[in-house]
């Protein structure tokens, strides 16, 4: 009898517990009603890519020495470096350079290892094309600079979440000079320098004290 009663009470408890969890869930969803949508309405609004954004690769033909390091560090040997040896000058003569962005995984190894810094990452990510072969960029296409989101007059640039001030979730209607959460790299640098100088002065005081002690 007691066992049965315990079963009943356990069952009731479980039922109420389930109802409680359900209610908690409802409270969470209901709380979302007052939150503003975080939608970025794409063609009209665009997020500003971060500093280290790995977008389409930019290439400067004139800097390239055709060393093929980019090909060697590429996971799939993607860049095509078309050069011939000029017998007279005994130098490589670069004819063409191309990267197929339909195949590239944007790992950035080529940019990392390029000895002359002729490769760099841009913030361009709109690479849609009707034909996959048109994604095979030659040195001319690779040399074009993308339009920056911040300078495009038809686009409303929006900051990414980590570039918003502390506690702000919505990039819309942000004051122009609102600073992001945390310190800017320059401020961090300043702080470090300050610390270093105070340590220096402390050490100099200490050393002077020691000198004094020695005197005594």
């Amino acid at each position, binding site marked *: 009898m007691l066992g049965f009663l315990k079963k009943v009470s356990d069952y009731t408890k479980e039922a109420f517990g389930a109802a409680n969890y359900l209610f908690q869930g409802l409270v969470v969803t209901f709380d979302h*009603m007052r939150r503003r949508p975080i939608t970025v309405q794409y063609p009209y609004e665009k997020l500003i890519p971060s500093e280290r954004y790995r977008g389409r690769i930019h290439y400067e033909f004139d800097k390239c020495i055709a060393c093929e390091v980019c090909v060697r560090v590429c996971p799939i040997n993607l860049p095509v470096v078309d050069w011939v040896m000029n017998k007279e000058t005994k130098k490589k003569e670069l004819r063409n350079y191309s990267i197929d962005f339909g195949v590239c995984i944007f790992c950035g190894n080529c940019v990392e290892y390029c000895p002359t810094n002729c490769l760099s990452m841009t913030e361009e990510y709109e690479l849609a094309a009707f034909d996959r072969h048109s994604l095979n960029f030659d040195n001319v296409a690779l040399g074009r600079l993308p339009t920056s989101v911040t300078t495009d007059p038809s686009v409303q640039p929006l900051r990414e979440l980590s570039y918003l001030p502390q506690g702000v979730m919505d990039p819309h209607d942000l004051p122009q000079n609102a600073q992001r959460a945390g310190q800017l790299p320059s401020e961090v640098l300043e702080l470090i320098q300050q610390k270093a100088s105070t340590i220096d002065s402390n050490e100099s005081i200490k050393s002077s004290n020691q000198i004094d002690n020695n005197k005594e």
Partner: protein
Amino acid sequence: MSMVTPLGTASQVLTTPGIDLELSFNQAMQGLGLSSEVAHLIWLPLPMLLVLVAAVIGVLVTVWLERKISAAAQQRIGPEYAGALGVLQPMADGLKLLVKEDVIPARADGLLFTLGPVLVLVPVILSWLIVPFGQNLLISNVGIGIFLWIALSSIQPIGLLMSGYASNNKYSLLGGLRAAAQSISYEIPLALSVLAIVMMSNSLSTVDIVEQQNGAGLLSWNVWRQPVGFLIFWICALAECERLPFDLPEAEEELVAGYQTEYAGMKFALFYLGSYINLVLSALLVSVLYLGGWGFPIPIEWLASWVGQSIDAPFIQVIAGSIGIVMTVIKAYVLVFIAILLRWTTPRVRIDQLLDLGWKFLLPISLVNLLVTASLKLAFPIAFGG
């Protein structure tokens, strides 16, 4: 106590004072040289048409709400460009479905395939017959009222089985079988919780059920006397509508779209329309059965006496009638809102959990609820409708 009488039946009209649209319509028609019977024939489809239009508009509003609230729950914007705030989006959806090709799969059973969606939609629309928006604001005050709704909603599974079978697709068949199993299982606790209400109000008629709740406004609503019944009814209504915690028949991860898989164009739209009309209808019926229907939280008679007006004055009647409509709709849409929130809160249950909940939890609880109601009715006849 009478309010406006635009849609009342003839017998009610004669006994209640106040504004009588049918009688004046009849007289106007007779003035045009038609007999009383012909005038009645012309009158008959008008309230039906009005309610049909109301149901369809209710669906459009619900679809818009569903999309907007879903968007808000996920911090999206939702439809925005079709009309202000995207209010015309459901119309655009409907138009798109209207002009789409009507596909009947090659190996499907064409006749049953066409008949299925119709059989799903028609009973749902018929059930609007008994939804009261005011004292006499309903198509027909049928004596068996709420029982008619329960009977009509039991036709729906046949349509679902039919479309599931006719599609000649295993997902459709499974979806149809699941839908039928689900709606049969949840009809029983639903009917039992309705029975408790009927027992308290001594009538099956929806009008009587609401009247019995409107003695003292908010405090006399059935939800205080039947809290368990209210919850059971709401859960079962969600299951009958195949709303999200119970949307197994069209569980897209398992069954593609259940019985709707092979449907396109207007036939799919019929399913869509049917499910949303059913949702609005269920919300309306919850508000009728448990939340005092057209009743204002403070009885309208009290308000009228404070203002110093007779409740039978035509002006007060019009105001009371419009308040009634607004209150019914508001209550229903609050429930629709909760249903949409629940959709984004709860995960889908498994089929065995669904049947477990129906047969092993809701059914015993609703039986106990019925028993308790009966004993309370015997013990406290004043509070529980002696």
